């Protein structure tokens, strides 16, 4: 029987087709090829939903579809493309295709209605971006994942730099490309190392590399090459190498600097990058190979600390920004920090949950910000807004829904997931991994900042009196903007209900559907249950007994405190800037902790002199040798030419002399004349 899995490749191929169509014929199509993209992503969404339902019925799919490099013989490494459809992938497919569809629709309002040029290029980029991310999600091995990971990076480069005639976007695109590439470099080394170690890079099934790694640690594996390290150490090194790519893509400290600049791209693209594709790819990768990371407490600890630190660090910077998209950018970095904290703390389900809720509320916030930007005639400075609440109610209420979710106010989606991340960090921290408590503390403080900057943004944008003429009479938006906002607004409010652990603990009603969804499955090595055993056996994570509603109440209180402070300071008819009161801290935050400056310093003071040295070596030594060889050759050639005098008696003489020389040399060597 033909089932959903047989059509699964089409999930990836449909947006790719729309990319080709938009590229080849976009200028002849209405709306620059937008409808093709909408149809393709809608198709992907329908197929994803079908896959989702099939997976719900307890099925899973893990097949190699195409072997593109096969070594000779049986025991050689093969490079393949294949599909891995398990609950995690099915969930992610739904997220990506839904957000991509809504972004396509929204783009009709943001790009077409605003009369942008180059639309075929835009829709081709969106199509390829979506296809790459979907391909990444369904990848069944690390190399395929890497290839699509790179495609995702390429697409983000193309789309961030969409307005390439301005000065900002091209340099932002380059920065995004280079910074993430720096991380991907480690990832690539990691991929090669995984192949060298295990001979395979499959995520799941017989002989998958996390399984072999587990067996190696248990002492029952056949053979892995660990290059002289203890297996634990080597697996940690592998995990950290791959983590390099994750940190770059998911904009974790210290490779987060590209993300705020990436706001130069069109806002729907920002929504796609932040909610469902580029940035999500990093976290998804860790979740995809969680069975491998769960074996290494060191790697988990580093993930948790990086995540917790990034969550707090980015949240503080979001506090002082003037532009609405900048605030959202830092909130993205911060939220992905939470997901990393969750993964590092052993909360696989919690992190996946936060990935799910964040995808919807962040897409909502970006699209809402996009609507505001349309209304404000592409002015992004919140201090030029104010009072938009009455003039654009749909945008306001949906944006508010997203903000409540972001800030983590009960019962909106972000509350449940963020709370669960923090809860996992807390219980495992108290249960004997004190390192996680540091992550928890940072995450908890970040909750306060999140509440504050989120509502500062809401109040400055929508409340009070309009501060400019434009804000008094904003540009209207059409159905194609409002529609996606409403869909996402509802999801942001409700998606959290799939996993209400604190309520379950309080009332005893069974409400943790996402836990159930991820805990079981046909591929037993990819289930949360199995990860729990691994975490216990190899990472030695144990849970302390803390009631989840207590932890939830603490973070809710902090979020409310942050929101309340914002309310006091900014929810007034004529808000004023309070950032000056922060003193030196304001400068520090406003300049992003001088992260860009120190990276530029590294580039100019360390890398550049090294490059100059290499250039000198290249110019002087390498080119010198090459040029020397060539001039010596030409000189020798011109000398050799002179042997050929054109006089035939010279030839006869030289010929005879040559033969005589050979005869003498070989005669003497061979002892013929003795």
């Amino acid at each position: 029987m033909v089932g959903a899995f047989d059509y699964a490749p089409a999930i990836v191929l449909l947006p790719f087709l729309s990319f080709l169509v938009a590229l080849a014929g976009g200028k002849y199509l209405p709306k620059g090829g937008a409808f093709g993209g909408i149809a393709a992503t809608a198709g992907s969404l329908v197929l994803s939903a079908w896959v989702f339902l099939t997976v719900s019925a307890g099925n899973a799919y893990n097949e190699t579809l195409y072997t593109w490099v096969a070594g000779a013989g049986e025991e050689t490494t093969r490079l393949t493309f294949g599909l891995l459809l398990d609950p995690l992938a099915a969930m992610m497919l739904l997220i990506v295709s839904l957000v991509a569809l809504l972004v396509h629709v929204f783009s009709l309002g943001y790009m077409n209605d605003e009369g942008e040029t180059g639309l075929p290029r835009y829709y081709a980029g969106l199509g390829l971006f979506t296809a790459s991310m979907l391909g990444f999600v369904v990848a069944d091995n690390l190399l395929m994942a890497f290839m699509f990971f790179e495609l995702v990076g390429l697409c983000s480069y193309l789309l961030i730099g969409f307005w390439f005639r301005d000065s900002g976007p091209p340099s932002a695109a380059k920065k995004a490309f280079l910074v993430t590439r720096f991380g991907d470099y480690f990832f690539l080394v990691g991929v090669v190392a995984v192949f060298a170690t295990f001979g395979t890079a499959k995520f799941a099934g017989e002989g998958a590399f996390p399984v072999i790694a587990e067996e190696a640690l248990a002492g029952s594996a056949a053979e892995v090459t660990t290059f002289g390290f203890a297996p634990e150490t080597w697996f940690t090194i592998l995990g950290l190498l791959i983590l390099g790519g994750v940190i770059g893509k998911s904009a974790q400290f210290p490779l987060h600097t590209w993300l705020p600049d990436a706001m130069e791209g069109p806002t729907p693209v920002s929504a796609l990058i932040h909610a469902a594709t580029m940035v999500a790819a990093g976290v998804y990768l860790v979740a995809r190979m969680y069975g491998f990371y769960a074996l290494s407490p060191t790697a988990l600890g580093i993930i948790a600390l990086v995540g917790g630190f990034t969550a707090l660090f980015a949240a503080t910077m979001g506090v002082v920004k003037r532009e609405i998209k900048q605030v959202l950018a830092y909130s993205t970095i911060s939220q992905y920090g939470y997901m990393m904290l969750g993964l590092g703390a052993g909360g696989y389900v919690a992190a996946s949950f936060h990935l799910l809720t964040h995808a919807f509320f962040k897409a909502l916030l970006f699209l809402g910000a996009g609507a505001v930007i349309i209304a404000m005639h592409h002015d992004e400075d919140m201090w030029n807004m104010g009072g938009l609440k009455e003039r654009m109610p749909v945008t306001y209420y949906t944006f508010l829904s997203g903000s409540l979710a972001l800030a983590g106010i009960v019962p909106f989606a972000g509350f449940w997931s963020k709370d669960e991340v923090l809860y996992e960090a807390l219980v495992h921290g108290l249960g004997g991994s004190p390192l996680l408590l540091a992550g928890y503390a940072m995450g908890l403080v970040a909750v306060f900042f999140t509440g504050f900057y989120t509502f500062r943004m809401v109040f400055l944008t929508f409340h009070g009196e309009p501060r400019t003429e434009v804000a008094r009479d904003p540009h209207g938006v059409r159905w194609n903007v409002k529609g996606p906002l409403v869909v996402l607004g509802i999801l942001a409010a409700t998606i959290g209900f799939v996993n209400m652990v604190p309520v379950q603990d309080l009332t005893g009603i069974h409400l943790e559907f996402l836990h159930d969804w991820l805990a079981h499955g046909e591929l037993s090595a990819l289930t949360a249950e199995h990860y729990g055993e691994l975490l216990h056996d190899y990472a030695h994570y144990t849970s302390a007994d803390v009631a989840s509603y207590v932890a939830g109440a603490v973070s809710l209180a902090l979020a409310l405190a942050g929101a309340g402070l914002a309310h006091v300071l900014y929810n007034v008819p004529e808000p004023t800037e309070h950032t000056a009161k922060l003193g030196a801290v304001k400068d520090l935050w406003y300049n992003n902790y001088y992260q860009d400056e120190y990276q530029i310093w590294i580039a100019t003071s360390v890398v550049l002199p090294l490059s100059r040295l290499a250039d000198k070596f290249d110019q002087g030594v390498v080119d010198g040798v090459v040029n020397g060889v060539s001039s010596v050759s030409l000189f020798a050639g011109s000398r050799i030419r002179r042997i050929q005098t054109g006089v035939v008696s010279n030839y006869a003489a030289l010929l005879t002399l040559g033969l005589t020389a050979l005869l003498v040399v070989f005669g003497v060597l061979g002892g013929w004349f003795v």
Partner: protein
Amino acid sequence: MTPLQTQLPTWTAVAPTLLLGLTALVLLLVDSIDPDSTRPGALAGIATLGSLATLAVAGWFLLAGTGQTGSGGAIELYGGSLVVDGLSLFFTVVVASVVAMVSLASYDYLRDRTYQAEFYSLVLLAATGMSLMGSSGSLATVFISLELASLPSYALVAFLKDNRGSVEAGLKYFLVGAVSSAVLTFGISLVYAATGSLLLADVASAVGSAGDLVGIAGVGIVMIAGGFAFKTASVPFHFWAPEAYEGAPAPISAFLSSASKAAGFAVAFRVFAVGFPLDAVVPMGIDWSLLFAILAVVTMTLGNFAAATQENVKRMLAYSSVGHAGYALIGLAALSGGGPNGNVMGASMAHLLVYGFMNTGAFLFIAMVEHWEVGRTFEDYNGLATRAPAACLAMTVFMFSLAGLPPFGGFLSKYALFYEAIQGGFWWLAAVGAINSALSLFYYSRVVKAMWIEDPTGEFDLGATPVGLYAAVMVAAVGTLLLLPAFGPVVETAQSAATALFA
């Protein structure tokens, strides 16, 4: 089922060679019946058809296994003076392919010239000699076939009788050839003195027990090597080559530098592999593989260095041909008692086959340029691609293939040659070869650069398209390309043929 040719009388094994000679006689007959009218189409057609028939029969024999280990081993005729085996058939294929292309191209080149029938019959007689060289089982047949190949060649180089360059080149070629023949004959007589036989098999069994006559045998062997070095245009017997290739009509340059060189290697491979087995002569102090190693290094280096500084494209190709003789000599140099000798020699044979296509094509391109009267230097080629893109594309294929770049036949053949040399333990020969190949890229790419990148210095007035020349160049280009995918079977055939020699 018994293959057809096993039911034929054994003398039919030399049918390819006979076909070549027969074609030459038919050409003379046609000419003597009707000496006054020139029928360029008919003459070129007969020559091309004859060589194609030879190619077909030789190819059929080769594929069917005539004279090869699979079907009873080498076929010996006339008391072993003629031998038909994989090696001789392989080189007959090379020679016949080159003759077919050259005959096709000469149709346009010889337009409005007299003595066309003589031209074609001389080419085919020389080809008969070359084919016979590969089949020579005794030193007497070696000498006779070599002269049969050489004498028509002298006349052909001087074919443009009213052109001073051509006549001068022919005379020089003849004089150097005479000296070389003398050296070869003297060498043969010394070997006969030491071993008492001219048959290679008998020489092989007797040479090991030469005893006090080791000096005589050694001098004889080195002199025989010198005679073959003349035929293959190897240092120090190469002096005729640049002059002859430059002065001769371009199709003859193609013929001499491809087919004649291949035939020289054919006879050298057989004489040295069969007649002077390394196991027997090296302990006596006659290390001819070392001799060829020295010749290989000197030849490829000298050829490539001299080619790098030429201004005349044809002369550059002449020196590049000397350089390629150096590469092919690796097939005689990277040998050792008990080593994988058949593989090295087979790789060299395969290289000569590929070389037959790419080098013939390159010289025929020169013939086309001469036909157009464009000029001889690199500068004259500037911007030629704007007028003749297809031909220039073919020339680019030849140049890059000669340099050994993928994706052309020359890449794999050179790669296989160097690889087998390394497998045989002669990594330094391979290294010298690789360095020389890198150098050769310089002067080959100069041609490509001139044709495609430089702007034309003046107007080209190319006139009508020379159909035969064009077709021949395209055949060579397609052959060069097809030998990349077809290289596997080619090199396997060559290596099994060469291995049979050492058995």
